[in-house]
């Protein structure tokens, strides 16, 4: 047996925009064990439910993350509405669905750019971020915010989208779909990319399931887990199938994200066709008394907001289980046995969001 040495990876590393630390135990160039460490920037946002009224807290829930911001606020208000037994207007459900798919598009394009950049693929980085601008422009035009939308509230949404604007959005997405297809084709069919990703960082289907993998990390290993299938918001009225790849390697996880962008565009198109007329919010009185696990599918996978109220203005507990948090044990497993040089690539294929994990 070779002598073992421990190499620290992070919390500052060129491929890591946020602090994650891994102690990599090496034998020669092979990783034989991994000890993950987070907690460098833990903010304790969940504790603020004791200081903020439940209706105001939605702004804090949205600020858990700057990428999945909309879906955090959506999941939070969804939980409150379930406890209070509120049936919000159907149009609001469709609008939430549209904005959540826009969030997924901008997150996946952000990831694609960062991932390509980490491998030196500058043209894919610049083109994916150029396309992302189009998504952010639509988000800004319809909600007022590019990163933090602030449009979800208990009982519905704060803004409506006119039919003309919806048509314009769909046409715009159709316009970039072709460019997106070119971009993902270049990325997924490039021989250097395939060489760096295929057969690397393999996570078996069974490991993915029992280690708690979610989102593209799970679906890249053949697990068809997608919380949108539970039918929350308007997803129950939309036809879609989760994108699943079966090889479990880095390439499969990347392919899932690349293909999911087209599913998101299709979902937005369907929503634009089916969205009913009507109001977008309702009057809400009282305070939640009960508990609920609210689930949604974020770009990185299943997010859970556990909400417990006692009929008073402050909630008793708000606990958020983010997808990155539950994807850490699978990351530990898929790093074991890899080469040291592959660690940065493997880490980025789970698309870690430490902002979410350190809520």
């Amino acid at each position, binding site marked *: 047996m070779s002598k073992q040495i421990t190499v620290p990876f992070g919390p500052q590393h060129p491929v890591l925009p946020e602090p994650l630390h891994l102690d990599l135990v090496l034998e020669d160039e092979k990783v034989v064990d991994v*000890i993950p*460490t*987070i*907690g*460098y920037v*833990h903010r*304790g946002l*969940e*504790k603020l439910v*004791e*200081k903020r*009224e*439940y*209706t105001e807290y939605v702004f804090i829930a949205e600020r858990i993350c700057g990428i999945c911001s909309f879906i955090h606020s959506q999941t939070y208000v969804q939980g409150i509405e*379930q406890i209070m*037994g509120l*049936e919000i207007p159907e149009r609001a459900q469709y609008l939430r669905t549209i904005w959540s798919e826009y969030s997924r598009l901008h997150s996946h394009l952000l990831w694609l750019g960062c991932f390509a950049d980490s491998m030196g693929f500058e043209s894919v980085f610049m083109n994916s971020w150029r396309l992302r601008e189009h998504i952010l422009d639509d988000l800004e035009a319809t909600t007022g915010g590019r990163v933090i939308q602030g449009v979800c509230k208990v009982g519905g949404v704060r803004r409506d989208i006119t039919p003309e604007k919806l048509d314009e959005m769909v046409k715009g997405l159709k316009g970039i779909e072709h460019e997106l297809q070119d971009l993902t084709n270049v990325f997924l069919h490039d021989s250097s990319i395939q060489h760096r990703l295929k057969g690397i960082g393999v996570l078996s289907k069974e490991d993915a*399931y*029992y*280690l*708690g993998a979610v989102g593209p990390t799970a679906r890249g290993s053949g697990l068809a887990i997608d*919380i949108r*299938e*539970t*039918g*929350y918001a308007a997803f129950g009225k939309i036809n879609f199938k989760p994108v699943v790849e079966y090889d479990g390697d880095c390439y499969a996880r990347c392919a899932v994200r690349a293909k999911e962008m087209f599913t998101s565009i299709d979902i937005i198109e369907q929503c634009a066709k089916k969205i009913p007329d009507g109001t977008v919010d309702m009057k*809400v*009185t*009282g*305070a939640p008394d009960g*508990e*609920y*696990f609210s689930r949604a599918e974020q770009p990185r996978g*299943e997010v*859970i907001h*556990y909400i*417990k109220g006692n009929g*008073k*203005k*402050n909630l*008793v*507990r708000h*606990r958020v*289980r983010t997808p990155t*948090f*539950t994807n*850490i*044990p*699978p990351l530990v*497993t898929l790093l074991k046995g890899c080469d040291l040089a592959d660690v940065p690539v493997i880490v980025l294929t789970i698309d870690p969001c430490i902002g979410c994990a350190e809520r």
Partner: protein
Amino acid sequence: MMEPQLITPISIGDVVTKAEQAKKDGKRLVQIGCTKIEDNFEIIYVYDKNYQMTSYRITVKQDDEIPSISGIYFGAFVYENEIHDLYGIHVKGINIDFKGTFYKTTIKHPFSVTIVKEDDTCQNK
């Protein structure tokens, strides 16, 4: 409306048995979360299969020791270290035990204290 959710109360002694049963039944571990209720702590274990959640709740005191299920579900270590670091509840037998360094907080066990509220009147009347 989405599906109703039921959380079954169990004793500390049943935690491992229920985890073993859940794994045998092909369920994945979704999360373990803790909530402080007055002087007690509620810990909820959530499992899932085919989008059907199964939840168990134990109620413990600050100085109680709870068993780890990381021997059954490897990924449980992140939740168990979190419960220890934020609430100060000791979890016995975690496979990767950070011994209080999983989260680096300036206040030890910050979630074990409830912020007292003077006014409970809801503005949303």
